[in-house]
């Protein structure tokens, strides 16, 4: 076994190294200092970016900014249609992907036959999660917009987004199901419960908070994705709020992109883009924090009961 060999070899190395004692402590000090510095550098860059956007965006944000329509050909007013559009897209895409996603996770984890099809499903999920988001956009364009003739619409966009978040929902739900101890399944089955009764009455209620986390993670991803909705749903400007699922929409991430790259009067529009970026950032961070919070709580619950 490769592992055992490298392991033995490392022990040999350690023995030889330990001969020069002071030298190695200096080495350790230098190496760990470099790692620490790099870590703090990385975190401060990332926090710096967030801080910069908060600082610049906070001046723009007000209730009017969030709840008003854009005015004077997008040079003033609010971004309400973009927020609403993102809300529609995210809600529908979660609705579309939650049912097959959770079903798939249940099937793989609870029924999980070891066979060709299951392996194929697993491979598909892994690959789907690595597909570039622009490729999803093209797929949505070719199939939903053109082939099925839904046009550039909320429906096309949310269907496309639902494929983007499907692998996230499946793998996080599966993780949630895996944390339910086997003894719970046994206890229920030993009482004469059928497999589905056990899943429905025992497993799913216990996994519910973690499944919520899975869905929230999906929401966070769907809210921030831009490339999949570029050609399937989003427009820079629409005169009115969307009327049906066949309407085009404005969406927060696309709005940021459009304001900064296609804007005609940058003086007025860049501040709006700052506001947009902050709203989106805020949304995604709130979503992530709540997902992390639920998961942490669930974990400590299991740690307490000793399962």
């Amino acid at each position, binding site marked *: *076994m490769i*592992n055992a060999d*490298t*392991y033995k070899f*490392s022990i040999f190395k*350690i023995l030889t*190294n330990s001969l020069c004692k002071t030298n190695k402590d200096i*080495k350790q000090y230098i190496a760990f200092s470099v*790692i*620490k510095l790099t*870590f703090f*550098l*990385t975190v401060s860059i*990332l926090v710096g*970016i967030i801080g*910069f*956007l908060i600082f610049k965006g906070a001046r723009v944000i007000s209730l009017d900014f969030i709840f008003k329509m854009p005015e004077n050909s997008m040079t003033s007013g609010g971004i309400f249609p973009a927020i609403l559009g993102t809300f529609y897209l995210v809600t529908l895409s979660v609705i579309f992907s939650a049912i*097959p996603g959770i079903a*798939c996770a249940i*099937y793989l984890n609870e*029924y999980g036959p070891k066979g060709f099809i299951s392996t*194929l499903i697993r*491979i*598909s999920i892994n*690959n789907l999660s*690595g*597909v*570039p*988001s*622009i*490729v*999803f*956009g*093209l*797929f949505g*364009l*070719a*199939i939903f917009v053109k082939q099925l003739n839904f046009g550039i619409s909320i429906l096309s966009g949310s269907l496309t987004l639902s*494929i983007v978040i*499907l*692998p996230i929902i*499946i793998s996080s739900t599966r993780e949630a199901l895996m944390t339910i101890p086997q003894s719970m399944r046994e206890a229920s089955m030993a009482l004469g419960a*059928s497999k*589905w009764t056990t899943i429905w009455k025992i497993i799913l209620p216990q996994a519910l908070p973690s499944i919520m986390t899975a869905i929230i993670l999906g929401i*966070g991803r769907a809210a*921030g*994705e831009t*490339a999949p909705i570029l*050609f399937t749903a989003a427009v820079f400007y629409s005169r009115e709020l969307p009327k049906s699922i066949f309407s085009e929409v404005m969406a927060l*991430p*696309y709005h940021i992109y459009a304001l*900064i*790259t296609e804007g005609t009067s940058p003086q007025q529009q*860049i501040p709006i*883009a700052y506001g947009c*970026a902050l709203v*989106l950032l805020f949304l*995604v961070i709130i*979503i992530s924090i709540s997902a*992390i919070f639920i998961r942490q709580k669930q974990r400590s619950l299991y740690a307490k009961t000793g399962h």
Partner: protein
Amino acid sequence: MSIKSENFREKAIEYTLFILSLSAIIFLAGIIFTLIKEAIPAFKEIGFFKMLLSKDWYPTYDPPDFGILPLMAGTMVVTVIALLISIPLGLACAIYISELAGKREKVFLKPFIELLSSIPSVVYGFWGIVFLAPAIQKYFDIPSGYCAITSGIVLGIMSAPIIASLSEDSLNYVPKSFKEAAFALGSNKFETLMNVTIPAAASGIITSIILGTGRIIGETMVVLMLSGGAAIMPTSALEPVRPMTSAIAAEMGEAAFKTLHYYSLFAIALILFAITFVLNMLAEKISKKYRIKLGSSR
């Protein structure tokens, strides 16, 4: 409920779940099929190798040129710059969180890194436009801040948390007994890290880098917003480039439906998909081996 109807219900539910879980396969197959179907006319008309090897990308000229070599070169340059940044930053974060941070710090840091990796790319792209691009332009004294290095830096910063989070997982999985054995032999923390922990987690770390590379290659918004968009063969990192994803995103809006331009953009997407597909399979293979390896010694 009688036994028979209960049995029937159980089977019906199992089949329903099975059919719903085929959705993942169907979507992946659908994507592959669509890409191939829409890319074939381009390959047929232009020629597969001519498309791949020609240095000219002028899709709207008359006559148009559809050589995607400059686009692939653009992707390459940006990816290499991004990896040069994200690998050291990501690994340092992973090592710090898993080996150096205190227990309390760790509980806070791990979710924090995950939080950072969930920030939408368009936000990073926006920051690049308003902050980094002007800074780069000033510092290097070049005509435009939108160039390979700008988008590479932003991509690198953006993917550092992803690599950090995945690598941290694999460092964490190294059994305590390995480290204890090294400590017991009188090695210090750094030697243990270099000689025991990192070799044991190596395949996990490599997997995380491969997955990170896939994300960088496939990332659209940052390169669309920051790389400048010139479809020429790059000679330095300070020149504008047009990576594959940004070409698709920028041109699909203008390309008329079912024209050669439209098909050729699908051809680019197909190549892009093939690259990430190979990377994913590679990552899966390595991580599977790794699971078996650690599983047997745990």
